[in-house]
């Protein structure tokens, strides 16, 4: 079938194209995309900082409706409302069995190749038959896409697609970083460096477990304002120096129990480590380009026993955690509505990316069906 998609033709070159989309094969699902969030990772592919093959259909934070299923698919049926899971783990490798499906190699390798696990991509250019790759086994900036069965998570009723989409990346990542990776406890102090889509959810998750204080650090005053609405108790405007001193002042000079970096820059990653108290945890959530190294003080590891770690996809089990987050939202506990602040058409992806980079939107949403 023919579908419209926003295609990254080459780095920094986006355009709307009509593509041929294969029918779902065995174990695959055809999803009509109703809403897809624009994430920093999408921009990393556009800029080449996350080097992946082109041409490619970006978009990985999506929600929609199952339209057809391939042979052997049992977990969903046509008509089911679903969220895309961009890390469909194999379920039987050492990491999956260990309860760490986000470390599963199978989706990681497929994502590096821009294909489904079998090595095939469902998108093609109709004129030449040239394969068009899909970002992280999803490709949500298209009217429809084909994903593995494990790449969709059925939703409980009552969550509209434009809110549900966010559960598929930024909400899952941000909440998981706090609840699973850092295991933040009530009355612990946290600092969040970078208050984009993921950073805001880190703040929201920290608020839900009664962490205090919750310090938001960002170079954009507008984003800091939004951060206050979502759970920041203190804000630090970055970019003029003294960020570390401000965090230390707010924590009696000791540093925070848990610091989160949600930008992906080595300088702010080092700041997260330096702002953490002895024995505390620094969690790197932001994604740096693959060849970037980080400089931190070596003596601080043995002498201050800090933990420096990271988290991928919120260390989550999407099939368990996405429905749980949806229920929290339905119960009025978890905020989604104020996160997605502006909607764009499929042909406005460039504009949506710019708005995200400038920080004029909390989360830009693409609505591929208009």
């Amino acid at each position, binding site marked *: 079938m023919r579908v419209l998609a926003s295609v990254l033709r080459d*780095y920094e070159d986006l355009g709307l194209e009509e593509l041929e989309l294969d029918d779902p094969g065995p174990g695959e699902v055809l999803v009509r995309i109703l809403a897809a969030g624009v994430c920093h990772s999408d921009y990393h592919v556009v*800029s*080449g*900082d996350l*080097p*992946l*093959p*082109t041409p490619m259909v970006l978009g990985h934070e999506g929600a929609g409706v199952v339209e057809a299923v391939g042979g052997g698919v049992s977990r969903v049926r046509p008509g089911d409302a679903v969220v895309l899971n961009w890390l469909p783990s194999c379920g039987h490798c050492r990491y999956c069995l260990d309860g760490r499906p986000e470390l599963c190699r199978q989706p990681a390798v497929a994502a*590096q190749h821009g294909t489904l696990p079998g090595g095939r991509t469902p998108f093609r250019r109709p004129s030449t038959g040239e394969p068009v790759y899909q970002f992280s086994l999803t490709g949500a900036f298209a009217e429809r896409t084909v994903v593995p069965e494990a790449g969709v998570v059925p939703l409980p009723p009552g969550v509209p697609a434009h809110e549900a989409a966010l559960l598929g990346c930024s909400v899952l990542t941000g909440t998981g970083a706090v609840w699973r990776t850092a295991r933040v406890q009530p009355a612990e102090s946290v600092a969040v460096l970078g208050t984009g889509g993921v950073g805001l959810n880190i703040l929201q998750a920290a608020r839900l477990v009664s962490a205090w204080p919750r310090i938001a650090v960002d170079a954009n005053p507008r984003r800091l304002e939004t951060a206050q609405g979502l759970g920041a108790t203190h804000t630090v405007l970055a970019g003029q120096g003294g960020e570390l001193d401000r965090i230390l002042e707010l924590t009696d000079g000791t540093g925070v129990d848990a610091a989160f970096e949600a930008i992906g820059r080595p300088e702010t990653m080092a700041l997260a480590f330096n702002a953490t108290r002895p024995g505390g945890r620094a969690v790197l959530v932001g994604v740096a*380009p*693959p*060849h970037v*190294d980080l400089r931190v003080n070596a003596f601080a590891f043995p002498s201050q026993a800090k933990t420096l770690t990271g988290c991928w996809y919120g260390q989550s089990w999407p099939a368990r955690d996405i429905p749980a987050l949806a229920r929290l939202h339905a119960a009025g506990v978890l905020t989604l509505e104020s996160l997605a602040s502006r909607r764009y058409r499929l042909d406005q992806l460039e504009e949506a990316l710019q708005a995200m980079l400038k920080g004029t939107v909390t989360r830009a949403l693409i609505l591929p069906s208009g």
Partner: protein
Amino acid sequence: MSPFRDSEDLHQSLGGFFDTLTTSPEGQLIHRVGGSILFIFHHPEGRILWSPLPPPGSWPAFRVLRGAETASVEPLLTFEQDGETAHRFWLGEIDLAQALARQQLRATGPLSRAMKLLPHLDPVYPRYAAWVAARPGPA
């Protein structure tokens, strides 16, 4: 253990293989990088630089400089690695993302321009294996 006896051996063996790439179809890929690529080796120490020869489509596609002569060109991209890692890379045995994550390979410069070429290197790996097999000495 390094597959190269010494710097001289690395410059001749790997450098010689790179010479064959300058007239291979894949050699033209260098024009998509937009600049020179410097490879820095340790165990044994060595330096090899690919310097593109315009215009695209002409042969040879680039020059291969070795050792001290590499200092005459400012590289756009630099890859630093052990001789063994380099050898295994050109055999097609290295997962680049993993090697970067473990610092077996350090890259500076616009990495994405080089990553774009990776899918096109598949035919090159068996040629390196054949090149190594045809050379006398250890490897």
